[in-house]
């Protein structure tokens, strides 16, 4: 075990919340929810052309922040830590470098960061964030799928009831919605490019669903 960075009792008492670095050393390989699907192998062996392109952005740091958007100090603190401001407009997102923030609900945001940065960012929040808030590391509970290709919108139309027309759903917009019989938080990152945050326990169902619903378009797995 490398550095645990366990808080001392005093530190814990100061923040009044338990924070731990949940990532082990580099000798332990993490398994994303779709580990068993072997995207790396499929990318080599599978179809190379098709209307749907799928890639897993595995093992990112997922932090769920709940705070008060009308609390200017909190909003300023988030911007100071992440270098990007909380998107306060419903269904929007903000992004800077490797950090992205998705609006989830009026008092909830999902912050995605590189997997190894989650604990450090969590610690910075615990040091600096004023007022009543909660920050939860949920990195193990979900994964991110990057969906693109000429038929990406068709696939989403089969899977969700959302209107994906660019006039209604521009780049940067975010929605958390029913996806087939599961859920997904979907952000548009390009005209034909989307990021889906899906729950770990449903990942296999969604993976099966995407394979089935892409059949007529052709599914290309990207590593």
């Amino acid at each position, binding site marked *: 075990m490398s550095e645990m960075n366990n808080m001392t009792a005093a530190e814990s008492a100061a923040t009044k919340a338990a924070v731990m670095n949940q990532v*082990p050393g580099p000798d332990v390989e*993490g398994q994303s929810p779709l580990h068993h699907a072997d995207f790396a192998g499929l990318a080599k062996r599978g179809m190379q052309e098709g209307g749907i392109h799928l890639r897993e952005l595995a093992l990112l740091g997922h932090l769920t922040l709940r705070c008060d958007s009308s609390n200017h100090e909190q909003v300023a603190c988030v911007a100071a830590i992440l270098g990007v401001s909380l998107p306060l407009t419903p269904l929007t997102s903000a992004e800077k470098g490797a950090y992205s923030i998705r609006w989830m609900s009026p008092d909830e945001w999902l912050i995605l960061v590189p997997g190894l940065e989650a604990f450090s960012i969590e610690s910075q929040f615990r040091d600096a964030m004023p007022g009543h808030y909660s920050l939860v*590391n*949920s990195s*193990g509970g979900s994964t991110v799928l990057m969906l693109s290709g000429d038929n990406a919108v068709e696939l989403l139309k089969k899977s969700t*009831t959302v209107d994906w027309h660019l006039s209604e759903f521009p780049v940067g917009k975010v929605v958390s919605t029913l996806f*087939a019989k599961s859920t997904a938080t979907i952000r548009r990152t390009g005209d034909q490019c989307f990021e889906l945050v899906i729950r770990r326990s449903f990942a296999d169902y969604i993976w099966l669903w995407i394979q089935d619903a892409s059949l007529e378009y052709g599914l290309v797995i990207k590593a």
Partner: protein
Amino acid sequence: MTQRNRLTSGGRIDRSTSLTFTYNGKSYQGYKGDTLASAMLANGIDVVARSFKYSRPRGIVAAGAEEPNAVLQLGATEATQVPNVRATQQELFDGLVSSATNGWPSVDTDVMGMIGKLGGKMMPPGFYYKTFMFPESSWETYESMIRKAAGMGRAPRETDPDTYDSINQHCDVMVVGAGPAGLAAALTAARGGARVIIADEQNELGGSLLNSVALLDGKPAADWVHDVVQELGTFEDVTLLPRSTVNGYHDHNFLTIHERQTDHLADSAPAKMVRQRMHRVRAKWVVLATGAHERPLVYANNDVPGCMITGAVSAYINRYGVVPGNDLVVMTTNDYGYQAALDWADAGRNVVAIVDTRSVANGDRVEAARQRGINVITGSAVIEVQGSKRVTGVSVAALNSSGTQIVGSVTKLKADTVATSGGWSPVIHLSCHTGSRPVWSDSVVGFLPGPTVQRQLTAGGINGQYETAIALQEGLDAGQQALVKLGLAVVNVILPKTKALHVAAPMSLFHIPHLKPTSQAPKQFVDYQTDVTAAGIEIACREGFEAIEHVKRYTAMGFGTDQGKLGNINGMAVAAKALNKTIPETGTTVFRPNYTPIAFGAIIGRHCGALFEPERYTAMHKWHVEQGALFEDVGQWKRPWYFPKAGETMQQTLNRECLAVRNSVGILDASTLGKIDIQGKDAREFLGRVYSNAWAKLAVGKCRYGLMCGEDGMVFDDGVTACLGENHFLMTTTTGGAAHVYEWLEIYHQTEWPELEVYFNTVTDHWSTATITGPNSRKLLAELTESDVTNDDFRFMDWKQITVAGVPARVFRISFTGELSFEINVQANYGMYVWEKLIEAGKKYDLTPYGTETMHILRAEKGFIIAGQDTDGSVHPYDLGMGWCVSNQKPFSYIGKRGMNRSDCTRENRKQLVGLKTKDPKQVIPEGSAAVLNPNAPKPLSIEGHISSSYWSESLGHSIAMGFIKGGLDKMGDTVYYPMADGTVIEAEICSPIFFDPKGERQNV
């Protein structure tokens, strides 16, 4: 066989592409562009069905969705069988296999035919109520007989090889119907920049224009259609949906469209393609341009094959190059009926006569017929048809001016085809779906769409406007109106010029009188598919069924798969005449979704097979599968049920797993338990309000069990909550209750106590939990951690943050087995890694994986409840003997306090949870068994309670059970009896539910 009714030229068929199909086992030829119906008519097939009740031969009547008779069974193989296919809507493909559904053994030689003549008498109208509902218990028998005799088609007995799916669409303007009105509306809306979807049930857009010889801008109408469709195709935001029936129009402008993507290609969809697709459309505005259905007239023997509607005759000639006979008699109440005769004559076949029920006929189409030398007989009607499997002639007689009586002598004419037109019924089905009641129009002689709350516009035939020029204009108007409503700039479309024809007023006539009273005249059919006659409706009225909805239920009118598209208005007219009322006075008839039958596949879409219901997996699922675990569904989770070894019975597996835990160490995947992270300075206070017990003093590093009750005081969930930090807790819930509990917390926070500073987050999926339990669990844990896990440093009900196998973990020393236990939580991405390390290190302790069944036994040995098994929404903590888990000392109340203190909850003799020990230790009482005090008392026996959990305990060497007994907590040592279905009785003694280690020493070691 030659296509003897096929014209050598004309129509929208491709004569160079010949297609072979079979009907009732015989092979025929048709052309690309044919429907199955047009190909059958081209081949001179007259009989396509036997009727439902009378087994009379029936032929093709119509050319579209309204067809009542040509409802066939399709499919070349067992797996591809499709029932209820309207031959008029099925495009022909090479190799199509079809058969008649009603008619046994065949439609031509029908053994039911002879019975049918008697059957009519034996099955009077009202048979549905009079006969088959009584005695009620016989209905199932009757139903199967009726279905066989009626031949309603059958579902495949093998799995459908095709895939179906659904897709969600959004648009500004949804245009239903692509005839002149729909195309004009869509073009206008599209040019105005709106997002448009236009759907039509036919294989190509164009609607009635495809059947017509009328000219637009001096060119064939199809040319204009072609140009419009091509232009529509250039708009990025316009979706064209041919072969797509808008089957349902629901609240909030939500429409369901059934697209047949590959039904026209082959028996089964080509590889990777979807057979049918449901479009679920949310539209800002809807334009209904659904057109109209022609009404046949009701006259004697009007069901003999060869009796058709005039529009269908024109459609078969003009669109498919098929003339369905040689000698035509037209009977009409209006000018439009003349068109069939004109088209028939143009096709070079003989028009015997046009019989017009009006005494004066002078419209432009009438004059055109006269100029061609066609015999036009006015003020008369075809009162009866001769023939059985095909029309051979008609009887014509003069009518009085109101059409209620025959006034002249009867003339017989030879003919093989009778085309009738009683006018047109606007297709108001979709408008009705939204709850709008239609309104009768005397001038249209039909129902029009009624007032609506939907954002809906209508254009063309649905408004009773049948002239192409007016339909086009109404479409343009609707398109422009939609643009205005959408806030878009209005654009203009130059409509094509049409020849304006003078159209004289139609006559309002539905039922042609006969020389004999209706009851004695040959059958005059109103609804072909359900064999409802004019006489039947008169009987219904005489018997007092005066409202049209009652008449329908008495006669079954409109109950067929065609929903009475041809017959309903005629039936209402017959009832109105019998009751001496007007049609609107008899009531209106409305329609429900779906407009036409839909394959179940299209409704279920991809949500079938492996995708029927999501299966939720833990991070260790693959390991469980590889170990040969059997799985139990817990909510959507797949949890290992037990891990059998080769040759073991289930009980042997359970015994082995239980003993392993009691004697050494077992391992359970507990990841599915609900986990909720709770933060905020009021988190502790909040817990005190949602749990029945106290939380004020739970120190950091400690865990506590809690019971959660509803407002009624009844237990609905339980679990252990750990204090992670002064303002930070981790709550666990039951696997199945996680979502509900999370919602419960949010609802109470948001609606009742928003002033409390607390936030909740679900972390169920984030943590993987490996529970190691048994006397050797500490030794095992110690092998994988450098931290102190001795009993001195790591007490029962403590939690610790340590590393396990090099992975940071939160370990909870809590126990659901009564044994020394450690629940090891790591971020789920490392769950499998830690699990495998535990398995590896556990070998020397014979670490045994176990599943939910062993978990249940182990906890029952300890008398621990399972919320949902030992609770059923009617038991409060005291009923469970868990008063220790209720604190009434809390300054603020808690949910359920008031409920569990209601008089009924505090009375004597409530059912209480106890243990049950059978007299014969080998006997296991079945779960659910009812307890009685004296099995020999006179029946009915008073039931004292029931068994909620019951198992064989290998550790104890006897069975154990938990159950409810009235006043049971005060009846320790008493005997109760459980009578079994086989007459035996199991005797049991009431005892404490804690069977194993009653002092609870083992978990504290």
